[in-house]
């Protein structure tokens, strides 16, 4: 248990280490094994929250966007792997995979503040890219949905439908987060 405590302490972001140390010091005062375990689980929760707060400023929408971006990046890597290991996979698969990886990866990098030094162009590129993604993803979502209503050869195609939904959903979330931030940052007109 003490090794686990030490590991949790080391996992805390540097700014919150005092709190982590205080939280884990309390474990020594707890005599009940069940209660100690619950306390330790709580400590794990605090570590996760501290990281979320450090990376995303505790913003719920940014947390949602980070999750969607991670899913898109992972889906992109999966499709790229599928394209490499299987034969006769149409080239559209690798194009979609690269699109998902770029969309997810770029947004995650932006959320983590890695692109700050390229401002304001990095933000403009993000807003432009996500707008294009929303239009293309939205159209592809509608088109693949309509195709599945009456499939020409009797085969339902769920792959393009899911990928289009992922692209459009992440784009929408990113535009909500970043246009909202821009509005909040704009100066308030004087009365």
């Amino acid at each position, binding site marked *: 248990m003490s090794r686990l405590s030490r590991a949790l302490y080391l996992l805390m972001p540097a700014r919150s280490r*005092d709190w982590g140390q205080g*939280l884990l010091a309390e474990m020594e005062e707890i005599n009940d094994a069940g209660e100690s375990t619950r306390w330790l689980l709580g400590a794990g929760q*605090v570590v996760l929250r501290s990281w979320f707060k450090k990376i995303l400023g505790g913003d719920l929408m940014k947390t949602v966007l980070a999750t969607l971006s991670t899913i898109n990046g992972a889906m992109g890597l999966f499709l790229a792997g599928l394209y490499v290991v299987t034969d006769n996979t149409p080239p559209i698969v690798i194009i979609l995979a690269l699109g998902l990886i770029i969309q997810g990866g770029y947004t995650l990098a932006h959320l983590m503040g890695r692109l700050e030094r390229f401002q304001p162009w990095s933000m403009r590129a993000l807003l432009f890219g996500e707008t294009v993604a929303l239009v293309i993803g939205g159209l592809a979502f509608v088109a693949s949905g309509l195709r599945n209503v009456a499939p020409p050869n009797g085969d339902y195609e769920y792959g393009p439908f899911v990928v289009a939904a992922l692209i459009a959903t992440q784009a929408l979330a990113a535009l909500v987060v970043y246009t909202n931030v821009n509005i909040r940052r704009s100066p308030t007109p004087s009365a």
Partner: protein
Amino acid sequence: MVMARRPSSQTLAVSALFLESTGQWHHGYDISKRLRIPSGTLYPILMRLSDRGHLETRWTESETPGRPARHMYRLTATGRDWAAVAVADARRQNLGVRQTAEGMA
């Protein structure tokens, strides 16, 4: 327009506990036990209160030799003002500020 978010019922309970014992230092396990709030919920509340300048912290030696120092907490002067208003508001609006375990018994 910027709207202040209403504190959660757990934040109000923690604030009420500190208010009831103004000036007294509490450690996390004591607060958790008295309010029946798990550590994963309690510490983010304490950290938030501290970030806003409502809570001060200090380290104190454990009563049992050989055990690590304990982190103690109490409200600052601004924290007391803030907590008094927040708790009074919640009570006036009948939001039900959670009592300590002893208080409920």
